[in-house]
């Protein structure tokens, strides 16, 4: 008896599938980084400047930071399904990763604002600037310098964390490559190629950030 193995080698026609994975990774990263940063800036500012917010927001920050992402994906996915409003895997990813990115960003915002010497705030206020004017023209630009390098690191980590959304069935880059590995049995080749794609996404981000950092420098 002869077995016909279902394997077939890598073909050029697999490329669109891989590119779909790349596209899905990019979409998810972009959405989560955007929403997450917006959430993080507001939360970080609240936690730094509004004492009540520090207490109220503590559970959100602590839980999101301490529970593994993979569990959060499954919990959010299942909760919505149980509530009768099943979500697209993309949205599960966007919700969980945005909240996660929000917490990490808020810590960076808080650290950035906290690093501005209070004497500089006094100097601004003593010139007649309002709280908001001081924030806009003095604290925020200074905080941005401390914030930015850490934020880029977080965005790069987030890009790689998008791979975890495959547990709820989202076909991003890693999931697409796993499907190809199952079919072709070319694990090494496919994974190396996939790694290259991640590198191609992340490396330009870090290059760009280095250039921006140089323009920030005030010495």
């Amino acid at each position, binding site marked *: 008896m002869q077995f016909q193995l279902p394997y077939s080698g890598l073909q050029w026609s697999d490329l669109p599938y891989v590119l779909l994975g790349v596209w899905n990774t990019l979409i998810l990263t972009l959405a989560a980084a955007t929403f997450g940063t917006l959430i993080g800036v507001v939360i970080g500012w609240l936690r730094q400047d509004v004492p009540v917010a520090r207490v109220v927001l503590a559970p959100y920050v602590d839980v999101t930071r301490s529970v593994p992402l993979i569990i959060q994906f499954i919990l959010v996915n299942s909760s919505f399904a149980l509530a009768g409003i099943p979500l697209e895997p993309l949205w599960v990813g966007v919700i969980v990763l945005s909240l996660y990115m929000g917490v990490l960003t808020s810590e960076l915002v808080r650290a950035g604002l906290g690093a501005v010497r209070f004497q500089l705030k006094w*100097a601004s206020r*003593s010139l007649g600037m309002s709280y908001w*004017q001081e924030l806009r023209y003095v604290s925020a630009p200074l905080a941005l310098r401390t914030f930015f390098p850490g934020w880029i690191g977080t965005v790069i980590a987030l890009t790689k964390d998008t791979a975890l959304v495959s547990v709820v069935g989202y076909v991003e880059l890693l999931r697409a490559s796993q499907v190809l590995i199952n079919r072709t049995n070319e694990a090494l080749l496919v994974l190396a190629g996939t790694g290259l794609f991640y590198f191609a996404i992340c490396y330009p981000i870090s290059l760009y950030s280095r250039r921006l950092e140089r323009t920030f420098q*005030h*010495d």
Partner: protein
Amino acid sequence: MIEIENVRKSFGTLEVLKGINLSIEKGEVLCLIGGSGSGKSTLLQCINGLQSIQGGNIIVDGTNVHARDTNLNTLRQKLGIVFQQYNAFPHLTALENVALAPRVVKKQSRRDALDLAREHLDYVGLGSKADMKPSGLSGGQQQRLAIARALAMKPAYMLFDEVTSALDPELVGEVLDTLRKLKESGMTMIVVTHDVAFARESGDRVAFFDQGVICELGPARQVINDPKEERTRQFLQRVLH
């Protein structure tokens, strides 16, 4: 005119101002001297509304600084203050440092604000440093920049909080020269200083602070050359010898 009536200020259980009474007339230079922790700097911060007070009143041209309905942002435009630490905004050039508040607070056009800034940098002798960031300036230059920045708001009063204490000795002179120039222009000033010689020479009156109260107040020369109070005498002996 600044009137200070029975002002009390505490940090927690520590009372740093224990009923201060003072009034400063237009055009006067009042120097506050005294040991560290005697309350001089705190009083300046209270006059500017940077610190709250627990009792008494501070009235600037008829406006009560610590009243609930006082708009501090408006009032502070009258009260320039320069601190011990140079507080130049590190992300802005010298020129932008001076132009920022006129542009943002007084809503001057960018061009007017920059012209005004140039004029004030020239006044403190920093005209050639306009495009430099504070990190490229010496301590004395940064302190003069802080003075120019405060003056650009056209304040009626200038408060100086130990502006030469953080400076290397050879840089003190240039900052004191700027203060003398201001005095000649008729600016009303309250100067917290450890420099007794400056107080004697440039002050109209001197107030000696000790442990949160004004121990002695009088004409500068009299207080420093011929103090009436024993504690003033002891302090002056310590700092002059």
